[in-house]
């Protein structure tokens, strides 16, 4: 049967099912096929914190949204064009996001009286006409899968579990996705269970063939590859990019990588990824708790490793005292906070940007720490290298902020040429043994005694004197140190000086970062939209909409949250109005008002989800209207 092919420039698909239905896997595979096909894409996995929430209930619904296009895109999309609902709960939980006329693919087998009752449907929505506004495709996915697999030597339960592959096959046909990568994936994943492997391959094929032959689908869609910049691409999640960035930084600095970590959602995948790469000399230490994980990292930093700890909000709270010690002893340490919705346990699998002020200020005493944020999943790679650069150059802990959306979301990434990455080995050197080199003498006082707190005049960094270096034996600790000699000091003037020196060192980092760049193509914008972190995509998409509607608006995005780029104040004062959208209650806005006395307009949502570009566009237009 030949089917009509309809060309689209972009599609947003959402797979939704029970948390045991394998929707994340189906979404991942569809993403990989789409990446290989050459579309630009952006994803939004959304799942409950419970591993297996009660089956068939609303809290147990897991979904995966994928936006792909023939042009470059910035977000996983606001509303799906296609919803795949594997059961009544998935339908009910996601229907409100589905616009009129959208395609709705429903697994009718799961619409039993019992499953309908679980989510409060008295009458099946398949029968009461309530779905008439959508382009409904009613497909008995479970029974078709089981039937396709009846000749396999597997249990009925195993056959039913393959229904996600049937759905994936169907969608892959519908959008003309290349199937090879999924077949390879299944062969590798189930290499030790050949019967399960064959069954999954068969289910995938059955779904594909069903799409081709059934009359449920009269149209097949085509989304042409995007014209991205030339290069080799791969799809990458934020957590994988972060792990790769840390490994790259270790190589670029010529320092062994040490990770101290304790499992926590949504940061654990960084630990999982780094644990694989022992060939790079990576030491991963799964500690007994968050405190030990950062403590071990600090110990390794004393010993000359590139040291990292990874966590999320609750873990950040526990690490605070050790980060304070790192500030005091002035050793390099990278603290990655993959933010999630708080306070307390909050919503572990949902995203938020509400740890900014904790990162800046969540320690006792005057305890300045540089803070940077990643803007997109692949940007986590570059953010990690930048965090390492600051840490080793200035001998300081650095907080790197990512979040659940970046961590689990993915996008195509043009693989960088190694030679294009910054050389971190020139950013620091271990202090030479006394008398060994001229630099060693510079670190000594007139009596030839090592001065562990004598600072580099340019960076104000103190010597990184690692154990094993003769003549540099010294003691460091959390007690205030005398300027230069580093011995214990309770002298009032010395403390005042050391507090200011530590602050000046962090402030001085601004000199080594570029100015904040503003995107204002028309050059006449009176409104600036300023963001930080993972809102980059949503803000960018919203700004595009506003510009397409004929308005001028400027956009800028902060990587460095502490210290700010040195031209930030000047940029803020250049515009009539500054809009600051954040997934918190206005934390950057508070900093900007405090530092620059600018009355920025704060726009906030804390729904555990990224901003919707359409909503944000309305907010921007509203601000422009009042400017």
């Amino acid at each position, binding site marked *: 049967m030949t089917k009509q092919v309809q060309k689209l420039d972009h599609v947003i698909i959402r797979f939704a099912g029970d948390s045991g239905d394998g929707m994340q896997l189906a979404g991942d595979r569809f993403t990989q096929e789409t990446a290989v096909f050459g579309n630009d894409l952006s994803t939004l996995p959304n799942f409950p914190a419970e591993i297996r929430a009660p089956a068939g209930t609303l809290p147990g619904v897991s979904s995966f949204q994928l936006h792909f296009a023939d042009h470059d895109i910035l977000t996983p999309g606001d509303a799906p064009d296609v919803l795949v609902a594997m059961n009544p709960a998935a339908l009910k939980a996601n229907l409100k996001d589905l616009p009129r006329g959208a395609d709705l693919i429903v697994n009718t087998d799961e619409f039993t009286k019992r499953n309908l009752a679980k989510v409060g449907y008295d009458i099946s929505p398949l029968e009461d006409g309530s779905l008439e506004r959508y382009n409904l495709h009613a497909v008995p996915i479970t029974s078709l899968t089981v039937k396709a697999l009846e000749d396999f030597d597997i249990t009925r339960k195993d056959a039913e579990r393959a229904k996600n592959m049937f759905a994936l096959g169907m969608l892959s046909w519908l959008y003309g996705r290349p199937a090879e990568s999924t077949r390879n994936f299944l062969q590798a994943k189930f290499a030790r269970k050949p019967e399960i492997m064959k069954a999954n391959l068969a289910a995938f094929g059955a779904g594909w063939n069903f799409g081709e032959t059934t009359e449920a689908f009269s149209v097949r869609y085509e989304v042409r590859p995007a014209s991205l910049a030339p290069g080799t691409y*791969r799809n990458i999640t934020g957590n994988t990019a972060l792990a790769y960035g840390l490994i790259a930084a270790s*190589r670029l600095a010529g320092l062994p990588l040490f990770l101290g970590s304790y499992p926590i959602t949504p940061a654990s995948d960084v630990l999982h990824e780094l644990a694989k790469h*022992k060939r790079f000399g990576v030491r991963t230490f799964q500690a*007994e708790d968050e405190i*030990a994980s950062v403590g*071990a990292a600090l110990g390794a930093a004393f*010993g000359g490793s590139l040291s990292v700890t990874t966590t999320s909000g609750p873990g950040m709270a526990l690490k605070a005292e050790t980060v304070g010690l790192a500030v005091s002893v002035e050793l390099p340490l990278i603290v990655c906070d993959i933010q999630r919705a708080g306070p307390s346990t909050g919503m572990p699998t949902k995203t938020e940007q509400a740890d900014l002020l904790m990162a800046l200020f969540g320690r006792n005493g005057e305890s300045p720490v540089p803070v940077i944020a990643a803007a997109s999943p692949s940007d986590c790679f570059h953010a990690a290298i930048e965090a390492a650069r600051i840490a080793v150059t200035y001998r300081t802990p650095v907080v790197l902020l990512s979040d659940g959306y970046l961590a689990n979301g993915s996008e195509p990434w043009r693989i960088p040429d190694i030679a294009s990455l910054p050389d971190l080995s020139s950013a620091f050197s271990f202090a030479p043994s006394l008398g060994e080199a001229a630099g060693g003498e510079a670190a000594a006082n007139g009596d030839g005694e090592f001065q562990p707190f004598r600072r580099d005049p340019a960076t104000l960094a103190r010597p990184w004197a690692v154990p*094993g270096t003769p003549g540099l034996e010294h003691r460091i600790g959390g007690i205030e140190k005398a300027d230069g000699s580093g011995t214990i000091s309770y002298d009032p003037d010395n403390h005042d000086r050391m507090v200011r020196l530590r602050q000046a060192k962090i402030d001085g980092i601004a000199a080594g970062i570029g100015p904040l760049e503003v995107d204002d193509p028309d050059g006449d914008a009176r409104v600036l939209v300023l963001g930080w972190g993972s809102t980059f995509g949503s803000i960018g998409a919203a700004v595009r909409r506003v510009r397409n509607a004929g308005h001028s608006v400027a956009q800028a995005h902060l990587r460095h949250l502490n210290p700010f780029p040195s031209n930030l104040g000047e940029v803020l004062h250049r515009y009539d109005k500054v809009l600051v959208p954040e997934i918190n209650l206005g934390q950057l806005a508070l900093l900007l008002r405090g530092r620059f006395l600018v009355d920025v307009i704060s726009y906030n949502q804390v729904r555990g989800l990224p901003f919707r570009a359409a909503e944000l566009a309305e907010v921007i237009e509203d601000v422009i209207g009042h400017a």
Partner: protein
Amino acid sequence: MHDGIKEQNGHRLASLALVPRAAGLATKDFKSDQEVRWCPGCGDYAILAAFQAFLPGLEVPRENVVVVSGIGCSSRLPYYVNTYGMHSIHGRAPAIATGLATSRPDLSVWVITGDGDALSIGGNHLIHALRRNVNIKILLFNNRIYGLTKGQYSPTSEQGKVTKSTPFGSLDHPFNPVSLALGAEASFVARSVDSDRKHLTSVLRAAADHQGAAFIEVFQNCPIFNDDAFAPVKDSAGSGQLIRLEHGAPVRFGPGGETGLRFGPFGALEPVPVAEATPGSLITHDTSLADPSYAFALSRLDSADFARTPIGVFRSVDRPSYDSLMAAQIDDARARGGDGDLAALLAGGDTWEVS
């Protein structure tokens, strides 16, 4: 520099096999220029002196010795030892030392801690460092009181202890540090006394000779807030209350050494006059038993009145250390797949070309 020190250098101590060797050091080489600021008469002085005098015998260069401490009176010790050192935060020294020792097999890493630091705020790190068998040596100065905060009861204070924070007597049942360490299956557990320099030195030496985590409880007198807490065991010659453990020797104690130990019906050790014992029923001390039950039974001889208090090495067994296992995993991975290739890593997985 440090990642490369892999060659065996013929050192005689197993735990220092990867540490460079230096001869000709003296006690004075391990004294820093800092004025020691403990209270007059504090047991810490004696422990510091024993530690400084013992270090030259290790024949490890000063720069390869690192002393890490937490917070408390004892934790000031690193300032007084002219090696590398870190005076860290309350309770966390074992965690910090774990990161250091795991990433630097060429260092001799010592942890100095106290009963509050190691057993209260840092209890978790202590037991996990011990179970992992990280190659660190932990000296717990047990004075059964909080000194630096001026005299509150500690997790080793006897129940009913009247202090500033417990004017009606403490309610907590105390930890026995040796029992705790053995419960965590520490591979080396010992106890000594601040006032017995010779014994303390021998225990330090045995700890240094142990590959993996070593735990030493040192009874330490606090003359200000808990004076004479260990008075019953101070005069080791007279009272006969100390049970001096020697590997391979029959356990004998009491006046004239006329008492031995045998196992009772439920695995507890019970004292018995040697003269009355059935031949072969008395215990000969063995530190090398894989099962920690015997060593644990020894630790349970302790009582509030110190009537029978074992000191010496309770347990010393061979078990691969955490840092060596981690290094072996890295070496194995490299032997099989070669050193990591960054470009290949980044280009791994499904890729596609855009031209």
